[in-house]
Each structure stands twice: as structure tokens, then as C-alpha cells.
């Protein structure tokens, strides 16, 4: 049973994508309406699922942004899901930091590592880049399992986190309650959608897309093609990190499973099923995918669902992942390609 709000949101978003200023207006309306969801959706279970969907949507937005604007695919997106969780856990458990400080630490730590990596890998060709992110993600996964580090990382069992205080006024139990967590998640969603919206329509977005289409010509036209893509990578990393932070705030748990490669499949499929219709697409995709996943979880065939979803979605796209980009540009008449 899918939440009707999300289906109609998608319809609204798609029809609104046509006119220039009605798109921002629609987004603002959606944003306002979104806060009211817990009033309408009473089921704690489905609200919890919706929260998970939003988190996946945030990750999908980050991955989708990088994919569409730069043709870079983060196979290793799980790193951004798990790293903030572990950093938050370490700060809370080992140093007794408050949740606010721990969250800040989680974000900054992940971003620092990500930028350091980004410096080295952004220049790589698309497939090499994807493989490198995969390697880094897998490395992290192995890292937390190292027996020597068990005291810090909890090894296979992971870490159960006890918050030292409240996060922005919300207690740990509040954050674990779907209805109370929703506004936090929704605020982040609105914020990141805004970020991507602005980035895509700005000069920065145009430069990214031109670089994506003909990197050599950009260089020979005097443009530095490294810095913008590093910036795009940084933005995507930041958004994905926020997703990971939301996860740990909600679940109070850090475990090696967070770093599983399979998350990449979920994220990319969500980014794709939402379509490139607008910045809202990946968010809708994340929610839709999570709801679908739930249906299959009951029958115990989670991974089967993921596998089938991936195959169908990618196979169904006429020109594949990169084709969306080209088709979008054509639909918009060669101007600002959306998202």
C-alpha cells in the first residue's frame, strides 16, 4: 500500500516541470505540505518506512546529481552511509560528545576523507572512478571488521549508540519515533533539494554539463575542468553524508552492513526510477523503492527485489544511464538541462 501523497507529489512535480517559475513554486508548496505528513499518515510503521525512504532518497539525490551533471557514478555510496554512523558512534561512545558535536564531527570527518579521496579520483574516467569508489567503500567495510580495531568499531556486531543529550532539542528516543523524526528528515530533504536545484540551474551547473559533454573542448577553451567536478563531488558527498547522518540519528546504530556494496544498487535504482523529471525525482524514487522493498521483505526475498529492480529499471531505459541526460537535454530544447 503506497502512500498516496508521494504518488501525487510525483505527478505534480512532473506536470509542473514545464514552466520555469512554477517549478520553484511547486517545490515550495510541496515543502510546506511535507511537514504535515505525520498529521495525515497516522501509521507509525508506514511513517517509519517513509523516513527510510527519505534517507534513501537523499542518497539517491546525491548520486543522481553526480550522475546527471558529471557522468560520475558512485558505486561506493555505502561509504557515505556508514562513515558518518561510525564517526558519530565513536564520538558519542568514546569521547562522550553531545549529539550535536558528534554530528558535526561525523559530517566534517566524512567530508574531509571524501575530499582527500576526491582530489585523487575525480580525474579518472567514468568506469575507473566508479571502481575506485567501490574499492574505497569496500576498504571501509573491511576496516571496521579488523579485529585490532574491534574496541573502537565493534567489529561484526557494530555499535549501539547512547546519545549524550539531545540533538537539536530532540532526545534519542524522540529521534527514533517516526512521527518526531519526520520533520528532521523532511527539513534535510528540503535543504538538499534546494541545494541541487540551485546548483543545477546555476552557471556552475552549465559548466558541469558542458564539461560532461566535451571535456577536452572545455580545457581548450580556457576552463579548468578539475575544480568544478571536484566541487560537484564535494556537494554530492555532503548531501550523501547528511543521508548517513540521518540514518544514525534515527537508528542509533552503526554496523558493517551499512557499508555493504549492495546499497549502491538501491541508490542508483532509486535515482533512476524517480527519473530526471526534476530534483524531486530521486526523493520520490527512494520512497517508492523502500516501499517496494518492504513488500518483498515480508516474503524474505529482499535481495531478489533489489536484483530484479535493478535489471528491469536499467534494461527499460532506452539509452541507459547516460541516455537520460541526452534525452533530458533534447526535451528542454537544448537549454538548461534539468537535474
Amino acid at each position, binding site marked *: 500500500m503506497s502512500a498516496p501523497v508521494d504518488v501525487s507529489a510525483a505527478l505534480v512535480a512532473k506536470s509542473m516541470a514545464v514552466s520555469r517559475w512554477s517549478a520553484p513554486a511547486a517545490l515550495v508548496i510541496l515543502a510546506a505540505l511535507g511537514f504535515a505528513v505525520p498529521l495525515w499518515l497516522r501509521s507509525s510503521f508506514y511513517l517509519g518506512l517513509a523516513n527510510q525512504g527519505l534517507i534513501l532518497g537523499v542518497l539517491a539525490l546525491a548520486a543522481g546529481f553526480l550522475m546527471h551533471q558529471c557522468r560520475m557514478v558512485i558505486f561506493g555510496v555505502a561509504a557515505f552511509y556508514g562513515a558518518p554512523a561510525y564517526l558519530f558512534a565513536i564520538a558519542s561512545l568514546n569521547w562522550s560528545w553531545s549529539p550535536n558535536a558528534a554530528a558535526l564531527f561525523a559530517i566534517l570527518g566524512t567530508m574531509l576523507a571524501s575530499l582527500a579521496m576526491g582530489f585523487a579520483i575525480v580525474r579518472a574516467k567514468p568506469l575507473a572512478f566508479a571502481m575506485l569508489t567501490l574499492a574505497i567503500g569496500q576498504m571501509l567495510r573491511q576496516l571496521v571488521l579488523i579485529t585490532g580495531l574491534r574496541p573502537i568499531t565493534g567489529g561484526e556486531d557494530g555499535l549501539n549508540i547512547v546519545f549524550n543529550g539531545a540533538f537539536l532539542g530532540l532526545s534519542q528516543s524522540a529521534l527514533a519515533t517516526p512521527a518526531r523524526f519526520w520533520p528532521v528528515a523532511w527539513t534535510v530533504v528540503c535543504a538538499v533539494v534546494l541545494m541541487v536545484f540551485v546548483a543545477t540551474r546555476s*552557471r556552475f551547473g*552549465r*559548466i558541469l*554539463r*558542458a564539461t560532461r*559533454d*566535451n571535456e*577536452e*573542448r572545455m*580545457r*581548450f*577553451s*580556457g*576552463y*579548468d*575542468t578539475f575544480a568544478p567536478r571536484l566541487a560537484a563531488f564535494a556537494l554530492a558527498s555532503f548531501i550523501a553524508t547528511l543521508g548517513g547522518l540521518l540514518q544514525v540519528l534515527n537508528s542509533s546504530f552503526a554496523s558493517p552492513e551499512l557499508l555493504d556494496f549492495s546499497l549502491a544498487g538501491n541508490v542508483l535504482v532509486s535515482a533512476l526510477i524517480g527519473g530526471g523529471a526534476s530534483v524531486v525525482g530521486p526523493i520520490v524514487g527512494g520512497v517508492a523503492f523502500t516501499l517496494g522493498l518492504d513488500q518483498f521483505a515480508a516474503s524474505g526475498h529482499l535481495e531478489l527485489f533489489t536484483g530484479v529492480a535493478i535489471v528491469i529499471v536499467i534494461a527499460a531505459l532506452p539509452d541507459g544511464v547516460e541516455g537520460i541526460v*541526452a534525452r533530458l*537535454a*533534447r526535451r528542454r*530544447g*537544448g*537549454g538548461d*538541462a534539468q537535474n
Partner: protein
Amino acid sequence: MLRIEDLCLHYGNLRALDGIDLSLSQSGRIHGIIGPNGAGKSTLMDVISGRRRATSGRVWFRGVDVGARSPAERRRLGISRSFQRTSIFPTLTVIEQLELVAARVGGDDIEKVISALELNRVRNERAETIAYGDQRRVDVALALLGNPRLLLLDEPAAGLSRAETTALFEHVAALVRERDVTAMIVEHDVEAVFGFCDDITVLDLGRLLMTGEPDEVRRDPKVIAAYLGSGA
């Protein structure tokens, strides 16, 4: 303006460029580079523009050794180029890509470039939808923006009809004279080269055979031998 000193590029046993010395000191002139296939013409252009690195030798541009400079840096210094295989932005319209490049290299002459290369008709068309000849001219237009001092054109007439080739060269010649730019053109179309170039350099197997005015070159026995010998 441009001085090339003992430029060599070899990989393995192949010597793509073998000790090229060349000097272009006057602006407002068109300098042609011709030679049989495999002579190293495009390689030379690649090295000057920064697309490839020479094994040894120097490239001086207005007194500056540009060997270590990236293509982007060279463009900002004033060396711009067009490409043998059309390299434009397929999903952008003509005017959009001109604006994009102009935003980086200097933007006051977009309209002049458009009218000079007769692109007004297609200015709002997406580059992937326009005719091949128009696309070639867009490629050249992108190189013309921002008042470059050294304009490198790599087989600009590739795939164009005789009429289109003549038209293109006329446009380029007019622009070169008007703006006092130095142009270096690699071209297979011998007729166009002899018709429009002020000086011609002939390359063969990575070596410079001779440099001179069209008439001298036409009559030079070494040049004739190189062309006839290799059956170009």
C-alpha cells in the same frame, strides 16, 4: 610570436616529430602546414596547443616557454585551436556554446564572430542538429572567441565541399587580416593552402622540409619528391 626550437616527439621507434625548428614572427599572416600523411602536421599542432607533450625541444610563445602550460593556460595566454574531428557541444545551441566559451576567454565579439562565419541562421539551433559544414564553422568560431593571438586550425576544411572550403578560408583570411592574428593551418587541401596562405611549411616524416612562400614551395624539388615519393 611563435618560435619552435628543435621539437621532437618520439614513442618507441617512431619519430613523429624529428627536430622541428620554426619561427613565426609576423602577425596578420596565415601560415600553412602541409605534408604527406604521417608527416607530423597534426602532431605539431597538438604539441603547440598542449594536447601532447614533446619528448624534447621548446615552444616559445611571445617570449614565454609554454612547454609546461596546460591547454587551458595556453588558451588564456592566447593560443587557441580548432579540431580535425569536430569538437563542439552537441546539446547546446550555437549561441549558448559561444557564450559559454566567451564567458571564459572574453566576450565582446560573439556577434562579430557569428556574422563573420555566417552562423546567424543557425544561432538558436542545437549543435547536433545543424549541418556538418555549419558544425565545422562552430568549431572554428569557438577558437576565434576572445581575440586569440595564435590561431591553430587543424584541417578546418575536412569533409567540406570545394565551395564551403573556399568560403571558410575566405572568412578566416578576412578575420586574420582584420584582427592582426597569426594563423597556422594544417590542411590536406593543397589548392586552399596555396590559394590563401602567406607562408607554407612542408613536413615529411616528422622533419621540416622547407618553409617559404607558396611559389617557392611549389617549385621545390624536395617537396615534389616527398609528395610523389609517398604517393600522397
